[in-house]
């Protein structure tokens, strides 16, 4: 539908959100992203039955971890949408971008692992 959404959103394709591992989300923050959202099918409509439900639990757990380390759990989110809902996709992209803008850049960008 060619609906405009912010260009800072970049998509990493997975066959199902069931593949999205907590570590992948954490790694994304390590590499310096400011926010991550997992876009899964509508609940009850997972092509693989319940991958999106598993993903939601993991996202909740990552929220806790990010709170623990002081990045803020609100930097990660789970959204559900169906393949035909372009508007919804664009809307979440905008919402999440707005949210991250208001939070500012991830504080974990300051330094990289430097010790040999």
């Amino acid at each position, binding site marked *: 539908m060619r609906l405009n959404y912010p260009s800072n959103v970049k998509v990493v394709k997975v066959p199902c959100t069931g593949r999205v591992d*907590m*570590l992948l989300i*954490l*790694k994304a*923050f*390590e590499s310096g992203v400011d926010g991550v959202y997992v876009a899964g099918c509508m609940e009850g409509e997972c092509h693989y039955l319940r991958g999106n439900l598993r993903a939601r639990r993991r996202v909740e757990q990552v929220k806790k*971890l*990010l709170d*623990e*380390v*002081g*990045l803020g759990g609100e930097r990660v989110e789970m959204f559900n949408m169906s393949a035909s809902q372009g508007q919804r996709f664009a809307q979440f992209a905008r919402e999440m971008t707005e949210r991250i803008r208001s939070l500012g850049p*991830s*504080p*974990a*960008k*300051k*330094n*990289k*692992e*430097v*010790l*040999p």
Partner: protein
Amino acid sequence: MIVGNRKEFGEILEKLGTARRVLVLGCNECVTVCGVGGEREVGVLASELRLYWQKEGQDFAVKEHTLERQCDYEYIDAIRPLTGEYDVILSMACGAGVQYVAEAYKPRLVIPAVNTTFLGVTLEQGVWSERCQGCGSCIVDMTGGVCPIARCAKSLLNGPCGGSSGGKCEIDRDTDCAWQLIVDRLTESGQMERYEEIQPVKDWRTGRDGGPRKRVREDLKL
């Protein structure tokens, strides 16, 4: 299996103090199975540390490694070359593993990242429950296969206290009354007469009260 709980991140940070070269060491046995110290959890903790220090703008080096078992010397010894590069080893094994690693790499600082809690079973994916306290003298044949020592809040050997209510323990409504379970099992198996026998006072020497225990099997020794 041995079941544990990950320590709070804040507590781990505090224990690490100024150390910034950290080897996060997992164990591929019980703690992997109970989702607290396997390779995935090692990854999560390592990632948390990196993110935290990145955020703090500090220099650091975090290495992830998972041993087949932290309670066997040979496995521990295999990473000797690696350990030299790190200030501390953050062990995600049970208390036994932490100590054995500490023993192998003294005087290097070994920090536990896991609180070892109990010997238990998996009730369902993500839920574990205590079953044994290692008293060294098993009597569950008398009690319908349910251990009153590990599963009764008061370790009563001769029946439920007055706090058993609706099958639950007085300490909270989520905890089963072990004696209710025992009575149910004995009833089911037609062995209620066993309940009438008075269990004599227990000899705790076989348990931890007899001091640290050691087991030797002569035939297996080299």
